């Protein structure tokens, strides 16, 4: 690689990195916590979920409870396991029956608690776990702008890591062993940026690609639909095996609906380790009533084991079957792998803990990149005005990024103290608190101060988290472990570990600053 090309690519790496840095940091930071989305939610609610990765309610029980509140005849009913929470998502279509009451002619979406059988709307069951999860793709910004913003951030991130690996290519082996933590701060930034960037590269590549896929799929697929399918979305969906089958309503009632759980039992005995994640009933109570059971084999046994079966209830015949025990189709495998790789939900706690650490390492790589950008421009040839501008950019960047840590910790404390917190409460406290803290740190104009106080505040608030949980629930970590409430115990232990790590880094940081002062350099 020639000198010109090296410098050109170096510059594109710097500029693209600086432009996306804050958005990318927020995505990685909130995203890292999202690996524990379900644990956070169960911790917040004080729930323990025993049956995971599948619908934890008998279909007949669910229907009888729904039937008490809603007139079900003529509706399409969809029960869906989204996450490992106690509740399942319920979606009811408007009744297709012309004799149905006015109330039955409107659809509904809500959650059904699998234990106490209560129902709740989406805002009612909003939690901190959901908030952090949605923050990592900017869902709080109105659709589709938030989604596209995060998607393009992922795409430009792909560009940044590609140029990063290219410019680092020749020094990849030699520099891997170069780490001069006791030299000066600038070499700490550069050495750690390249070493950790390289270690994190495969991880980051996967997340950039899958993240872009999730958020920008509609944009990259648009030309194919237009050219290959003449704009016919349905034909395109069919080719990608993502069409939804619909069944006509016959207006002939089905006499006496028998138990549907025999179908789910049949599926589970037929397909070993099959986890039902979706139950779909078309035309409830009609001669054309169909039951579709979808799910997958436990990924620990078969990574790509997507299965689906449709019964016609009137004659109990199977009208469609996708056997999960057999080799899955290419479409199913690709979609399954892309989402499993992103969610890291196929290998238990270990994988998610490693992913969390790699996510935080990515956060570090982003911020060290910003610091390199700053110190590399702190030289005589740069005008004072430009230097001042660069400095204030970094003051703001660090203020916004680093204050996320104490804010997240504080939010854990708040949702427990003011339970049930709900959507408005979380929005208000988190965003206003974050804004105030960012403005305060930016106003202080001291990067060391911002870093120290963010870490310190985060660590102290983090230690309060198990304490608040004890005050509110009366259970310490060991109580929760004894009660087999592993999700709850996990969050307490997780925050203690994070706090201890933050305090240790803080101690190291103080030593580094003292050392740097000795060598007469400031940053």
């Amino acid at each position, binding site marked *: 690689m020639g000198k010109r090309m090296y*410098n*050109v690519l170096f510059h594109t790496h710097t500029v693209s990195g600086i432009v996306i840095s804050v958005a990318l940091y927020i995505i990685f930071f909130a995203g890292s916590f999202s690996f524990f989305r379900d644990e956070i939610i169960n911790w917040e609610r004080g729930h323990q979920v025993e049956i995971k990765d599948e619908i934890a309610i008998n279909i007949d029980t669910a229907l009888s409870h729904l039937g008490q509140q809603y007139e079900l005849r003529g509706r399409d009913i969809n029960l869906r396991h989204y996450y490992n929470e106690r509740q399942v998502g319920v979606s009811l279509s408007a009744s297709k029956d012309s004799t149905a009451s006015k109330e039955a002619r409107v659809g509904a979406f809500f959650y059904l608690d699998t234990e106490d059988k209560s129902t709740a709307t989406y805002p009612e069951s909003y939690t901190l776990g959901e908030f952090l999860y949605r923050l990592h793709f900017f869902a709080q910004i109105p659709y589709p702008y938030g989604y596209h913003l995060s998607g393009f951030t992922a795409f430009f991130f792909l560009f940044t890591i*590609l*140029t990063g690996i290219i410019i680092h290519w020749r020094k990849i082996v030699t520099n891997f062993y170069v780490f001069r933590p006791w030299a000066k701060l600038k070499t700490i930034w550069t050495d750690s940026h390249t070493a950790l960037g390289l270690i994190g590269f495969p991880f980051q590549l996967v997340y950039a690609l899958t993240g872009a896929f999730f958020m920008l799929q509609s944009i990259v697929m648009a*030309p*194919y639909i237009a050219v290959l399918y003449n704009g016919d979305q349905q034909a395109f969906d069919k080719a*990608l095996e993502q069409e939804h089958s619909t069944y006509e309503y016959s207006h002939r009632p089905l006499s006496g609906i028998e138990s549907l759980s025999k179908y789910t039992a049949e599926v589970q005995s037929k397909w070993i380790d099959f986890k039902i994640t979706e139950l779909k009933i078309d035309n409830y109570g009609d001669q054309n009533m169909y039951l579709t059971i979808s799910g997958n084999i436990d990924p620990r046994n078969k990574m790509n084991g997507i299965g689906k079966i449709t019964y016609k209830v009137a004659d109990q015949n199977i009208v469609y079957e996708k056997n999960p025990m057999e080799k899955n189709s290419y479409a199913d495998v690709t979609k399954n792998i892309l989402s499993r790789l992103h969610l890291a939900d196929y290998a238990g706690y270990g994988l998610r803990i490693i992913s969390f650490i790699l996510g935080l390492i990515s956060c570090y790589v982003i911020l060290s990149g910003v610091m*390199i950008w700053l110190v590399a421009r702190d030289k005589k040839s740069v005008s004072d005005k430009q230097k001042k501008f660069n400095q204030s950019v970094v003051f703001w960047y660090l203020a916004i990024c680093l204050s996320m840590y104490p804010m997240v910790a504080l939010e854990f404390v708040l949702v427990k103290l003011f339970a049930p917190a709900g959507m408005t409460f979380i929005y208000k406290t988190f965003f206003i608190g974050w804004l105030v803290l960012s403005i305060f740190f930016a106003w202080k104009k001291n990067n060391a101060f911002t870093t120290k106080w963010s870490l310190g505040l985060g660590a102290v608030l983090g230690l309060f988290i198990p304490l608040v949980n004890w005050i509110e629930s009366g259970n310490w970590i060991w109580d929760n472990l004894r009660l087999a409430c592993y999700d709850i115990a996990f969050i307490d232990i997780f925050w203690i570990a994070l706090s201890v790590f933050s305090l240790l880094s803080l101690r190291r940081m103080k030593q580094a600053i003292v050392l740097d002062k000795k060598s007469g350099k400031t940053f």
Partner: protein
Amino acid sequence: MPANPKYLAQSKWQRFAKITAGFIGGFGVSAAIHIVLAIWFDRSIVLITSSFSSFLLWSVLFVVAYIPRNGWRVWAIYLSIILLCGAIVLLHQ
């Protein structure tokens, strides 16, 4: 460090040409190549593969757009690839 400015494109128009060629042109080339592949080979397999390969190709084309000295040349090359693919699509219809 930082990049030596003597190697970088100085003109704003050049910068504009490279960014647009990489971002818009790169997207177009990636889409066009995938469409041609979808016509030649199994359509659904190509389209499903494109859910990740299109981003990879697009981002590589974005990087490549910065290599030539003249950004308009990149536009010319990318546009001719798109037109060539367009011609293949028309021939197959």
